[in-house]
C-alpha cells in the first residue's frame, strides 16, 4: 500500500470518526426525546388551532440505518365543540414510523418499513352548521383554497408493514344526524406503489361497527341503523392509476344488523362477501368468482359489469340450496308483506337458482333491461296461496327462464309437479312473453279430485262434483285466453278420464258414471259447415245414470258423443252445437213411464242464422220398449227421425216459435193397452211436418182383426195458430178389413177400464165432464174407405165416406157401404156449441136391407119401431135424428128431433103373440098368408114422443092402416084400422099401454078412407101430405 493512500485512508477514517462522533453527539445530546418533544409540540401549536400534546417523541436515525424511525407516544388532540361526544379529537397511545432514508435519498423511494398506530381513539364531530372538530389546521379552514395539483414526490412507495391496532373511532354529524362508531379496528397493510401501480395486501378487522342516521324531525325516526359485532375486510391486489383495481376481496360481517326506516333487514346475521380475481377500473368490473353469503344462503357471481351512462352486466350467478322456510324467517318485514299481500301465506321447500344476467340497463327514454337467464330448481315445495282453496305440497320443479324485459321473455318449464291434498298435477312446457301476454304452451297431466276443484265453478251454478279426473292435455294460448277460456284463440287438445264421476246440478239433477272419457280439441277440426266450430269433445262413457228430482231416472250405456261447439264463452247468446250421438242402450223411468231404447244414434245441431236459432236432428234407434204404468206397453223396432226447426223467439205461440220441419218414420210398433186383448200393431208410420203443413205419407195400423192406413195432409197450421186462417186438411182412411164388433168390444173395454178409476166404494164420484170440443177454425176432411167390415154377423163392403171437421163441427158425411144385407149411407154431425150444449145428429139410410140384419146391426131401432121385429124381408130404412147433448153426453130430450121412414115389400109377418091376438080380433082367415105385399112407414121423434104416421099394410085379402104413438117410456097408443077384408064390416083395434104387454081392444075403424082418395077428408089428406113430406125429406139425402 502506498503511503499516500494510507494517509488518505487514515484521513477519511478520522473524518468518519469525527462524523460519527458528531452524529452521536447529535442523537444522544440534541435529538433526545426530552429535547425534541417540546420543540415539536411548540412547532405543532403553530399549525393547529387546538391543543395538541405529544407526550414523547423518539427519533431513531442510526440504530437501524438506513432505516430511520420516529415514535410518538400518547398523542392527544383536544378540540372541544359544543354537543360533541368528547373534547378529545384524537388520542393515540403509540405512533411508530420507520422509513428507509437511503432509498429515499438515493432513489427517491419511500420505503416504510414499519408503520404502527395503536391504541387510538378518534372522536370526529360535525355540528349542525357543518363545522367539524377535525378542522384544526390553521390556514386550512377553506379546504378548497388550494386547488393546485401536487406532483408525486416519490418514484415509488413501499409499505412493508402498516399496522393499526385497537383503533376506536366515533363519528357524529349533527347536520345529517349520523352517528357512527368503530371499535377495536385493526388494520394491516402491506404494499408498494410504483409507476402509479399500487400493490396492496390489506387486512382490516373490527370488533364492532355501528352506524345510525336519524331523521331531522322533532321526534327523530331511524333512517338507517346498522351494526356488526365483527367486521373484516381482506384485500390482496393492485391499483393502477388509483382507478384500475385488481385482486381478491373478502368481506366478513358477523352478527350484522341493519334497519332502514324502522324496517329490519338484518338481525344478527352473518354476511360474507368474497371476490377473487376481480378487477375494477371505475367503469368496468370483472370478477371470476364472487361469493355472497348471508347465513347459510350464498350466491356465487362471475362475470363483468360496467357503468357509464348505462350499466352493462354480464354475470353468471348460482345459489346454493336455499331452504325457503328458513329464508322466510330472515326476510325483512317489507318483503314478507309483499309476499303476504300477494296471497302467499306460507312457502316451504328448497330452491336453487343459477343463471346469467347479460345486457344493458338503461334508464333513458328508451330504457332497457339486461336479459336474465335463470334456472330454478324447487324441491319439497309447499305453498299455501290464498287464491287456491288448497295447499300445494311436494312441489318439484325445474324451469329455465330467459327474461328479456324489452322483448320476449320465455320460461321453459321442464317439469312442475305438485300435489294438493287429494290431487296430483304435472305441468311442462313453455311460457313466452312472460311480462306481457304470458303465452303458454303447456302440457298438463293431472289426477284431479273434482270435489277439491269444484270451488272454481261459478257460485250461481249450484253444482257439486265428485270423482277423479285424469287429465292429459296440451294447451296453447295466453294466460288471459286460458283463464277466460277464449275458445276462438286457444289451442287445446287432451283427454280427460273421469272415474267415479258424480255431478249434481241445482240439487235436483244428478249424473253418475264409473268411467267417462272426454277428448277435447280446440280449435275444432270438425267441419259440419253450419258454423265456425271452436271446440270438439268426443265423449264416451260406459254406464251413465242421470237422476232428475228422484222422479226421472235415465240410464245410458255405451255412450259415444262427438260434440262440436262454437265459442260459447264469448258468444254465449248464440251458442252453436253439433254432435253425433250413439248410445248402446237408454233406459228411462219417468214417473210411471219406463222406456228402453236400443242403439239410439243420430246427429243433432243447433246454430244461429239470420237472427234465428236453427235446430236440426237426425235420430235413429233400433228398438224402443215403453211401459206407461200398467195401462200401456209399446215396442217399436225401428225409428228414423229427421227434424229441423227455426226458433223465432219473437213469436208467442210455441209452434210458431219452433217452426218445426220433421220427417218421422218408424216401423213395426206393437202397443198393448190394459183391458184390450188385442195389441195395436203399427207396421209403419212415415210423416212429414213442415212449417204450416203436416203430411202423413204412409201409416198402417192393425188392431186385432182390423187394419187401416192413414195418409193425407194438414196445412195452414201456421195461419191457424196465428188465427189468420183455417186449419185445412184432408186425409184418407183406408182399411182392408174392419171388425166393428171387436172395435166396439175394445171401446167398451176402454170405457170400463176408465170408469173403474172413478168408482170409490159404493159411491160413484162424478167425473168432471170433459166432452169433446171441436176447435173452431179447422176445415178437415177424412176420406174413409173400408173394403170389408164385420158388424154383428154381417159383412159390409166398400164402407166409404168423408169425416169432416169444419169450423167447430165434426161431420161424418155420406158414409156408405154395401153388404149382402144392405147398402148403407150415413151422415153424422157433432157440433159442440158449448160444454153443456153439444149438437149431434145423424142422417142414416139403409137400402135393401134385411130387417133382421137391420135390427142386428142397429139394436136400438127396436126401441123406435117395436113392431119391426115382427117382420122379415127386405126393406129400406131412412133415419134422420138430431139432438143436443149434455156435457156427459146425456140427451136433452127437449131438443130431440127425428124422422124415419121404412119401406118394404113382400115382408113376412113373423108369428108372435101380439100378431095372433090382432089376427083373432080382426078375424083374419086362418089360411091367410102372413105376408105383407108392401109397407111404407113414416114416423117422427119429437122430444119423447114417437109418432107413427098411418101406413097401409096389404096382407093377402086384407088391408090395414096402422098409426099411433109410443113414448120413450115404452108406453104406446096404437090403432089399426082394417080397411079391406072379406068381412062386411070395417073393424079397428086399439093397442095401448106398455109396449111389452099392450092392452088390445076393438075400436072403430079410424082410417077406412085413408087410401080412398075420393072419400078422404081434409084431416086424412093432411096426414098423407105430412107423411109424404117426411119421406121425401128423408130420401132427398140418399146418394145414388
Amino acid at each position: 500500500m502506498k503511503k499516500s493512500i494510507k494517509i488518505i485512508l487514515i484521513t477519511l477514517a478520522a473524518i468518519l470518526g469525527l462524523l460519527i462522533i458528531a452524529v452521536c453527539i447529535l442523537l444522544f445530546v440534541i435529538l433526545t426525546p426530552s429535547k425534541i418533544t417540546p420543540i415539536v409540540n411548540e412547532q405543532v401549536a403553530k399549525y393547529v388551532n387546538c391543543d395538541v400534546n405529544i407526550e414523547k417523541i423518539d427519533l431513531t436515525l442510526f440504530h437501524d440505518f438506513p432505516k430511520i424511525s420516529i415514535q410518538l407516544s400518547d398523542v392527544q388532540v383536544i378540540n372541544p365543540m359544543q354537543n360533541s361526544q368528547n373534547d378529545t379529537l384524537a388520542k393515540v397511545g403509540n405512533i411508530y414510523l420507520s422509513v428507509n432514508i437511503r432509498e429515499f435519498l438515493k432513489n427517491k423511494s419511500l420505503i416504510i418499513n414499519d408503520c404502527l398506530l395503536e391504541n387510538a381513539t378518534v372522536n370526529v364531530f360535525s355540528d349542525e352548521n357543518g363545522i367539524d372538530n377535525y378542522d384544526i389546521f390553521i390556514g386550512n379552514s377553506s379546504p378548497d383554497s388550494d386547488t393546485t395539483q401536487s406532483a408525486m414526490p416519490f418514484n415509488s412507495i413501499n409499505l412493508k408493514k402498516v399496522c393499526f391496532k385497537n383503533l376506536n373511532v366515533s363519528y357524529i354529524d349533527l347536520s345529517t344526524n349520523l352517528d357512527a362508531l368503530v371499535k377495536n379496528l385493526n388494520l394491516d397493510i402491506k404494499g408498494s406503489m410504483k409507476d402509479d401501480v399500487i400493490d396492496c395486501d390489506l387486512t382490516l378487522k373490527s370488533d364492532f361497527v355501528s352506524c345510525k342516521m336519524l331523521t331531522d324531525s322533532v321526534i327523530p325516526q331511524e333512517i338507517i341503523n346498522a351494526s356488526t359485532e365483527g367486521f373484516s375486510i381482506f384485500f390482496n391486489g393492485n391499483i393502477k392509476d388509483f382507478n384500475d383495481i385488481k385482486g381478491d376481496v373478502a368481506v366478513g360481517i358477523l352478527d350484522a344488523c341493519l334497519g332502514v326506516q324502522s324496517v329490519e333487514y338484518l338481525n344478527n346475521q352473518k354476511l360474507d362477501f368474497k371476490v377473487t380475481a376481480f378487477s375494477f377500473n371505475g367503469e368496468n368490473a370483472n370478477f371470476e368468482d364472487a361469493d355472497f353469503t348471508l347465513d347459510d344462503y350464498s350466491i356465487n357471481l362471475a362475470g363483468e359489469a360496467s357503468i357509464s351512462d348505462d350499466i352493462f352486466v354480464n354475470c353468471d350467478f348460482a345459489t346454493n340450496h336455499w331452504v325457503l322456510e328458513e329464508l322466510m324467517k330472515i326476510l325483512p318485514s317489507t318483503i314478507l308483506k309483499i309476499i303476504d299481500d300477494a296471497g302467499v301465506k306460507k312457502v316451504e321447500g328448497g330452491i336453487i337458482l343459477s343463471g346469467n344476467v347479460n345486457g344493458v340497463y338503461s334508464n333513458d327514454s328508451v330504457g332497457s333491461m339486461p336479459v336474465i337467464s335463470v334456472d330454478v330448481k324447487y324441491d319439497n315445495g309447499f305453498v299455501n296461496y290464498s287464491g287456491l282453496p288448497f295447499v300445494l305440497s311436494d312441489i318439484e320443479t325445474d324451469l329455465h327462464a330467459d327474461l328479456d324485459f324489452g322483448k320476449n321473455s320465455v320460461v321453459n318449464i321442464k317439469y312442475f309437479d305438485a300435489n294438493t291434498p287429494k290431487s296430483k298435477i304435472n305441468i311442462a312446457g313453455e311460457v313466452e312473453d312472460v311480462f306481457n301476454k304470458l303465452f303458454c304452451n303447456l302440457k298438463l297431466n293431472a289426477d284431479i279430485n273434482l270435489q277439491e276443484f269444484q270451488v272454481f265453478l261459478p257460485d250461481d251454478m249450484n253444482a257439486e262434483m265428485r270423482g277423479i279426473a285424469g287429465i292429459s292435455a296440451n294447451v296453447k294460448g295466453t294466460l288471459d285466453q286460458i283463464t277466460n277460456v277464449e275458445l276462438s284463440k286457444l289451442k287445446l287438445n287432451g283427454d280427460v278420464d273421469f272415474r267415479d264421476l258424480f255431478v249434481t246440478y241445482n240439487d235436483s239433477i244428478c249424473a253418475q258414471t264409473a268411467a267417462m272419457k272426454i277428448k277435447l280439441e280446440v280449435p275444432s277440426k270438425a267441419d259440419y259447415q253450419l258454423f265456425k266450430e271452436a271446440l270438439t269433445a268426443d265423449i264416451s262413457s260406459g254406464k251413465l245414470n242421470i237422476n232428475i228430482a228422484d222422479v226421472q231416472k235415465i240410464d245410458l250405456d255405451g255412450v259415444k258423443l262427438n260434440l262440436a261447439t262454437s265459442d260459447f264463452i264469448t258468444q254465449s247468446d248464440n251458442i252453436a252445437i253439433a254432435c253425433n250421438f250413439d248410445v248402446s242402450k237408454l233406459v228411462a223411468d219417468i214417473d210411471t213411464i219406463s222406456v228402453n231404447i236400443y242403439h239410439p244414434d243420430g246427429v243433432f245441431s243447433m246454430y244461429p242464422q239470420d237472427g234465428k236459432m236453427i235446430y236440426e236432428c237426425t235420430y235413429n234407434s233400433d228398438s224402443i220398449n215403453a211401459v206407461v204404468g200398467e195401462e200401456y206397453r209399446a215396442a217399436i223396432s225401428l225409428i228414423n227421425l229427421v227434424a229441423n226447426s227455426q226458433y223465432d223467439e219473437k213469436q208467442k205461440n210455441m209452434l210458431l216459435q219452433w217452426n218445426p220441419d220433421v220427417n218421422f218414420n218408424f216401423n213395426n210398433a206393437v202397443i198393448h193397452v190394459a183391458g184390450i186383448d188385442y195389441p195395436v200393431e203399427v207396421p209403419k208410420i212415415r210423416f212429414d211436418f213442415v212449417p204450416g203443413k203436416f203430411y202423413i205419407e204412409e201409416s198402417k195400423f192393425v188392431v186385432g182383426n182390423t187394419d187401416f192406413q192413414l195418409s193425407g195432409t194438414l196445412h195452414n197450421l201456421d195461419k191457424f195458430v196465428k188465427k189468420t186462417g183455417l186449419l185445412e186438411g184432408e186425409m184418407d182412411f183406408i182399411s182392408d178389413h174392419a171388425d166393428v164388433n171387436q172395435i166396439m168390444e175394445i171401446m167398451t173395454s176402454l170405457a170400463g177400464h176408465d170408469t173403474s178409476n172413478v168408482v170409490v166404494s159404493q159411491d160413484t164420484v162424478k167425473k168432471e165432464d170433459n166432452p169433446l170440443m171441436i176447435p173452431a177454425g179447422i176445415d178437415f176432411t177424412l176420406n174413409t174407405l173400408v173394403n170389408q167390415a164385420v158388424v154383428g154377423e154381417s159383412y159390409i163392403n166398400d164402407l166409404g165416406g168423408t169425416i169432416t171437421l169444419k169450423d167447430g163441427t165434426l161431420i161424418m158425411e155420406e158414409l156408405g157401404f154395401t153388404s149382402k144385407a144392405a147398402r148403407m149411407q150415413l151422415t153424422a154431425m157433432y157440433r159442440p156449441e158449448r160444454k153443456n150444449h153439444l149438437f149431434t145428429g145423424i142422417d142414416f139410410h139403409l137400402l135393401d136391407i134385411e130387417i133382421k140384419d137391420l135390427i142386428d146391426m142397429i139394436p136400438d131401432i127396436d126401441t123406435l119401431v117395436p113392431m119391426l121385429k115382427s117382420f122379415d124381408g127386405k126393406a129400406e130404412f131412412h133415419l134422420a135424428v138430431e139432438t143436443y147433448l149434455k156435457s156427459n153426453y146425456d140427451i136433452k130430450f127437449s131438443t130431440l128431433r127425428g124422422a124415419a121412414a121404412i119401406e118394404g115389400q113382400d115382408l113376412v109377418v113373423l108369428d108372435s103373440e101380439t100378431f095372433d091376438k090382432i089376427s083373432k080380433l080382426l078375424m083374419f082367415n086362418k089360411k091367410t098368408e102372413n105376408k105383407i105385399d108392401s109397407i111404407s112407414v113414416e114416423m117422427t121423434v119429437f122430444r119423447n114422443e114417437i109418432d107413427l104416421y098411418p101406413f097401409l099394410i096389404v096382407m093377402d085379402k086384407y088391408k090395414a092402416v096402422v098409426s099411433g104413438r109410443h113414448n120413450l117410456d115404452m108406453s104406446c097408443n096404437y090403432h089399426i084400422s082394417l080397411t079391406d077384408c072379406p068381412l062386411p064390416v070395417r073393424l079397428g083395434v086399439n093397442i095401448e099401454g106398455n109396449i111389452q104387454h099392450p092392452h088390445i081392444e076393438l075400436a072403430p075403424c079410424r082410417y077406412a078412407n085413408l087410401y080412398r082418395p075420393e072419400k078422404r077428408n081434409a084431416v086424412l089428406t093432411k096426414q098423407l101430405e105430412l107423411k109424404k113430406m117426411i119421406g121425401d125429406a128423408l130420401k132427398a139425402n140418399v146418394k145414388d
Partner: protein
Amino acid sequence: MNKHFIPFLCCCILLLMVSCIDDIKPNFDSSLLTGKWQEGTLYERYKSDGTGYTWDVADDVQESEAQPFTWTLEYDELTQIHEMEMGGVVPKTYTVTTLNNSAFVYHDNYGVTHSFVKVVE
C-alpha cells in the same frame, strides 16, 4: 012409402046438420099467437112471419139456442114443421082450444095438452 018418407027426410036433415056441425071449427086469430109463451120450463116463441122456435130451460137451453120451426094456424089447427139440420122434417099438428092475449092451449091427437101463458109480446 009416404009414411016412411017423412022419417027418412028427417034423418037426412039431421045427418046433414050433424055434418055441418062437424065442419064448423073455431077460427083463432093467428096474430094472437105471436109472442113468447111459457109452460113451466118450456118456451115457445111465434113470430108473425110464420117462424118460431122452442126451448126448454130445464135442459139448459137458452132462447138464443132455441130450435126453429115454421108454423101455420088455420082455424084451430096449428101445424109446426120442425126442419132438422140433418135433413128431415118433423111435422107436428095440434088442435088449439084456447088462444087469447094471455093463454094458449093446444092438444094433439093423443090427448097430450100444452097450456102456455104469454110472457112477452
